[in-house]
């Protein structure tokens, strides 16, 4: 059955797709969103650790949808293994709203320096760092729009790394704060650091038809049951659908984008829930499937003008995959150090710690010689995932801990201390050993080639990650925490993906132009994190949201020309005669 035409077809419903659908619907345009996952509502989410985190009910089963991951061997070669064999997974949040359903809403803007890393710090051997084709000021109005439309709570304070803002403060006051925040503030002040309130994409007051946070304490990795979390689903798609201009189709797995002899995309083919092949016609197509799957879709969407994949004449699709670099630290504040009230406050479950440090967003202390790009340090409580925490208590150097020793260890673990964690974010440098291709052998349950992902890390990232984690650990020690440990991590976080379709001015070295329109396909946009040539030193979500709002504005501007001048030509060129004869409701 041929679908009715839409102005815009968006593939993917997360942080990249939601703003586009919302903006187009607000502009009176017709938009359809194709999402391969189910449409879960607020009422479908429970604080159930077994469901969310032990059985991974919100991501595809690797038996149906594996990836092939290439990891570096000790001898410098690469070992490829299917996730079906390894048991690991690169999936995150496959449902309407995507991974934004399961974020904890750590929201940081990128800073002006992030848009000009190459110019500011020079090249790094082995890394393909480039400047962005836009400036911070181009994105700033959209960061502000995200604050209003998605809902970001926070409090602006003066600090050396504060980025320019067009408004004096956040539209929503900070969420309730945990007593740990005070301990962090005092430690940072003693060390001469500038602890800042962490902005959260979580509503502290009811707004836009959404309820306030319930402070259950089970936030990150869990779906939000109140709508307070600024997921693309609750913040944007629900409103887009309510406006009447947006249709959301869950269980729609897009198999390919079909292009004509001119190279333009004419329709999206997808499998519906029953496995039937369907297709959607639209003037403009927007891909937002997360970086790996976006690249995979373009690579398998070959056509007469795109023999190596859609918009891939330059061979750049899939290259420069980014995760997030960094490190972590942790320590324990034992309750016996505090009086009854203080101890009780530290035991509280629900409020957010909401503290960050960005004093080393640029590291200019001479430790590395010339100034280097640094990153962000966030503080948080140990997540309330009791099963996960308990399983770690079974581990020891001498084998498993079980029996009464395990019980005493569990009692101590859960009763004696408040555990503080540090997460340090730095750039994951783009380089030639981190990329996505199509695996030549492995297929998913639809018979489509799966993504083969090489996950190489640039060693520079470990240096920066270790530096930042150590700074965080110093704060923990100043707080009086015991058992403080810090480490840098080279493992790619599965929930922080960007790159693979970088934007730029030169079609030979980039996939997208500055508006995130494909250089080679003028009715194809990419609006997820794939556009990012470098990722900044913070979680990507706010930037993806902001850029997707910016892209939506560009699409709105492009559409009127299509509608007035080219619509009839479009229909004539892309409606097969037999279909025109049969009418619009036939396959």
């Amino acid at each position: 059955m041929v679908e009715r035409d839409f102005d815009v077809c968006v593939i993917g419903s997360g942080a990249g797709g939601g703003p586009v659908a919302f903006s187009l619907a607000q502009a009176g345009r017709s938009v359809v969103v194709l999402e391969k996952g189910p449409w879960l509502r607020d009422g479908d989410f429970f604080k159930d650790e077994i469901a969310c985190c032990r059985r991974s009910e919100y991501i595809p089963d690797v038996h149906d949808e594996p990836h092939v991951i290439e990891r570096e061997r000790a001898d410098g070669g690469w070992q490829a293994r299917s996730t079906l064999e390894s048991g690991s997974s690169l999936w995150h949040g496959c449902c309407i709203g995507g991974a934004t359903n399961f974020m904890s809403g750590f929201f940081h803007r990128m800073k002006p320096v992030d848009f000009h890393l190459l110019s500011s710090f020079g090249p790094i051997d082995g890394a393909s760092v480039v400047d962005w084709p836009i400036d911070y000021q181009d994105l700033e109005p959209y960061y502000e729009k995200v604050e209003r439309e998605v809902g970001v709570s926070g409090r602006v304070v003066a600090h050396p790394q504060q980025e320019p803002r067009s408004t004096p403060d956040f539209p929503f006051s900070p969420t309730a704060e945990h007593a740990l925040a005070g301990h962090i503030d005092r430690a940072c002040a003693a060390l001469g650091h500038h602890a800042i309130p962490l902005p959260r994409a979580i509503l502290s007051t009811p707004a836009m038809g959404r309820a306030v946070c319930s402070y259950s304490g089970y936030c990150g990795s869990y779906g939000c049951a109140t709508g307070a979390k600024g997921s693309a689903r609750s913040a944007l798609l629900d409103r887009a659908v309510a406006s009447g201009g947006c249709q959301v189709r869950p269980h729609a797995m897009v198999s390919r984008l079909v292009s004509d002899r001119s190279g333009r995309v004419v329709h999206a083919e997808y499998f519906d829930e029953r496995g039937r092949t369907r297709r959607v016609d639209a003037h403009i197509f927007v891909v937002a499937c997360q970086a790996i799957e976006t690249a995979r879709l373009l690579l398998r969407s070959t056509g007469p003008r795109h023999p190596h994949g859609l918009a891939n004449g330059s061979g750049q699709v899939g290259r420069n995959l980014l995760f997030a670099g960094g490190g972590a630290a942790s320590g324990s504040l034992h309750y016996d150090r505090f009086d009854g009230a203080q101890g009780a406050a530290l035991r509280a479950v629900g409020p957010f710690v909401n503290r960050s440090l960005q004093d080393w967003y640029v590291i200019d202390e001479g430790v590395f010689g010339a100034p280097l790009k640094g990153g962000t340090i966030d503080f948080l409580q140990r997540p309330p995932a009791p099963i996960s925490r308990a399983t770690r208590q079974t581990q020891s150097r001498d084998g498993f801990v079980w029996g009464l020793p395990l019980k005493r260890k569990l009692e101590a673990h859960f009763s004696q201390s408040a555990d503080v964690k540090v997460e340090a974010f730095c750039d994951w440098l783009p380089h030639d050993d981190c990329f996505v291709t199509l695996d030549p052998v492995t297929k998913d349950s639809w018979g489509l080639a799966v993504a083969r992902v090489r996950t190489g890390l640039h060693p520079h990232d470990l240096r920066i990650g270790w530096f930042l984690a150590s700074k965080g650990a110093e704060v923990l020690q100043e707080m009086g925490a015991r058992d403080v440990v810090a480490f840098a991590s080279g493992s790619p976080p599965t929930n922080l993906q960007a790159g693979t379709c970088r934007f730029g001015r030169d079609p030979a070295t980039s996939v997208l132009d500055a508006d995130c329109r494909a250089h080679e396909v003028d009715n194809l946009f990419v609006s997820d994190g794939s556009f990012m040539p470098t990722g900044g030193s913070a979680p990507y979500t706010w930037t993806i949201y902001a850029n997707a709002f910016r892209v939506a504005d560009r699409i709105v501007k492009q559409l009127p020309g299509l509608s007035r001048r080219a619509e009839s030509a479009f229909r004539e060129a892309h409606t097969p005669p037999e279909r025109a004869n049969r009418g619009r409701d036939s396959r």
Partner: protein
Amino acid sequence: MGEEALQKPPAQSPERLDRRRFLTQLLSTVAAGATSRSALCAAAAALESCAHTGASAGLSAGQWQMLAAVQAHLLPSEPGIPGAREVNATGYLRLLMTDPRTGEEQRVWLRDGLVELAELSSERFASEFISLTKNEREVALRALERSPSGERWLAALLDFLLEALLGDPSHGGNPDGIGWRWLGITPGFPRPPIRRGASWSREISTSV
């Protein structure tokens, strides 16, 4: 993204990776969808049909008794403090293993571990595991831990045990939040709806 914003894939240590990999595969296969209402109802029906013999999920009544004994050793009961029996660990695992979508290989895995332990008990003590003293059981399980397959089996068994201790009661363990109360854990809300299979599994667990 998580309160832990950085979510890492399984740890990189080869030894740890092997164990985690096995467990992840096991969990994903054993319980993919095990929490759906229809699956649990089917599992409950399966339990009922075999309740008179105690056999289910490819394990004999004796093997379920042996498994319960292993779990009780790993998480023993104490006065006022729950152990495997009080958190319904055996019923919880039986519910998973009788899920229609649980692969046969997972049932084989569970049975193979028991067979290995039974052989080990027989060789060392000329006796069934269930008849061993507490100290002999410890010796047998530590010996099992030294074999790669035994280590993987015990790792998964411990993880399932702690799921029964601290998971939502709707999954069949942690009855009335007994594990949460012991360790002072405040559950999140809203809680998942009660699933029919949970109460069935509790009834069965008392018979093994």
